[in-house]
Each structure stands twice: as C-alpha cells, then as structure tokens.
C-alpha cells in the first residue's frame, strides 16, 4: 500500500526513466501499446505497469479503438513539474544576475587596487 501511494503525483510518475521515455514517445502523437513495447524494448507487462502509473496521475489518457488500446499524452498533468522548474529557474537566474553586478564591482575594485 505504501508503494501505491508513492505514485500519486506527477513528480513521482516522471521520476522513473522508462516512464519519461514513454512520455517522450507520446509527444509525437497517439500510439498503441505494442508500439511502445517495441520502442522501449521492454516486456509488455512492464510497459502496462508504467502506463498505469502514468494514467493514475493523468499524464496519459487511453481510448479503445477496435481491439487496440491507444495511449496519448496529457501535458496538462505535467504542469506542476513545469511550474516548479520555472520558479526554481527564475530564482537562480535572478541570483546570477545580481551576482554579475557584485562581480562587476569586485572587478572595478581590483583594477583600482592595481
């Protein structure tokens, strides 16, 4: 049970590298499971398990077409990750900009001191 809870958000879902590969594969459009199996070189049950995790967090959606199950990406579910990265990135960009100001002062001072 504890393990099931660990996949409850998008961050966790994409922490697994093979799941990121699945998402990458789906950026090009909808694909049936067997195509993902071929692309990833993993056994079908493994791929299905990863897909289930991705579905639980809403990162992929599925629809049946005839005998095929087709999976597609739902990028909206990955927004929390994007938002986090953006916030973190902005802070560090601001820091580096201010740091450059500090460094200009240090350089001037050093030139003066000779």
């Amino acid at each position, binding site marked *: 049970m*504890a*393990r099931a809870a*660990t*996949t409850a*958000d998008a*961050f*966790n879902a994409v*922490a*697994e*590298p093979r799941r990121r590969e699945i998402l990458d594969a789906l950026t090009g459009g909808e694909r049936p499971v067997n195509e993902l199996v071929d692309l990833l070189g993993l056994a079908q049950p493994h791929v299905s398990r990863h897909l289930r995790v991705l579905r639980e967090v809403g990162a992929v959606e599925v629809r049946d077409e005839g005998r095929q199950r087709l999976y597609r990406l739902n990028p909206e579910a990955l927004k929390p990750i994007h*938002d*986090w*990265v953006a*916030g*973190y*990135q*902005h*802070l*560090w*960009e*601001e*820091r*580096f900009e*201010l*740091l*450059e*100001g*500090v*460094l*200009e002062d*240090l*350089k001037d001072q*050093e030139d003066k001191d000779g």
Partner: protein
Amino acid sequence: MAQTSSGTMEVTFPSDEQILITRTVNAPRHLVYRAWTTPELVRKWWAGRRGEMTVADMDFRVGGAWRYVMVAHGEFEVAFHGTYREIVPNERIVQTEVMEMPGEESGGEGVVNTVTFRDADGGATTVSILTDAGSKEVRDTIAQSGMEGGVREQFELIEELAASLT
C-alpha cells in the same frame, strides 16, 4: 551543449536524485569564489529579487555550519542551514542544505550541494551547482525499498522549496 557566452543558464536532471544548474559568469574564478563565500557579498545576491537577507552566517571551514535567512516580500521568513563538507578554494564547495520548516524539527542532513567553479573562455567562469537530494540515509532507503520512496522524498523537498520561493 557548449556554453559559449555568459547569461545562459541550464537546468538539467542528471539522475533521478539530482538537479544540475550551470551558468557562465563574466568574471575570473577567484572573484566568483569570493562573491560566493563572503557573507556581505552573499547578502547582495542570494535572495534574488524576492526579498532581503537578514542572516548570512558562514563558519567557512570543513565541518563548519552556515545559516541563511531571508525575509521574502510576502513578509515571511525562509531559512536554510547546513555544514561545509569539502572546500577546495576557487574550485569546489560541498555543503549540506536543510530548509527550516516553521514548527517542524528539521531532522536529517537535507540535500547536498556541490558548487564547482571552472575557467571559461575570455576570463569568464562556469559555475555548476549540483543538488543531490539523495543523502546517504535516503539512498540506503532507496536501495532497500525500491526507487520510488526515495525519489518521493526528494520531490516533497523540492515542492516545499518551490512553495517557499513564490
């Protein structure tokens, strides 16, 4: 991808437990190092444009402790502390970082940050900050219980951090 000019920052995830930030700044290595390790200079940049730093305590030696406090514009305090694990002047600083959560005992060593300073073209310096969220303790837990528990801890930490930044 080659880093050709200053001003471009890259954020990458080298592994499930790591975040790597790389940026080239237009100044020689010894000055960048000085700005990074001198409290009155750290105060000028570390809070970004999100607030004022009220505390920048740095017992800058291996085993020494540091603590930064900033008051964000929203009038709340955010504090971080840790210890220095490794110091190679003008090259490398390894330090732990724990974010202090109000009303919570901040246990554990937190994340480990490795800051590296390298020469870049034209007298500039490339700074890399590698954040390793997997402490030994967490990493051992990961080894014993499968990846997901450990990674989750990392992301919880990151989400808390993100919440404090906005």
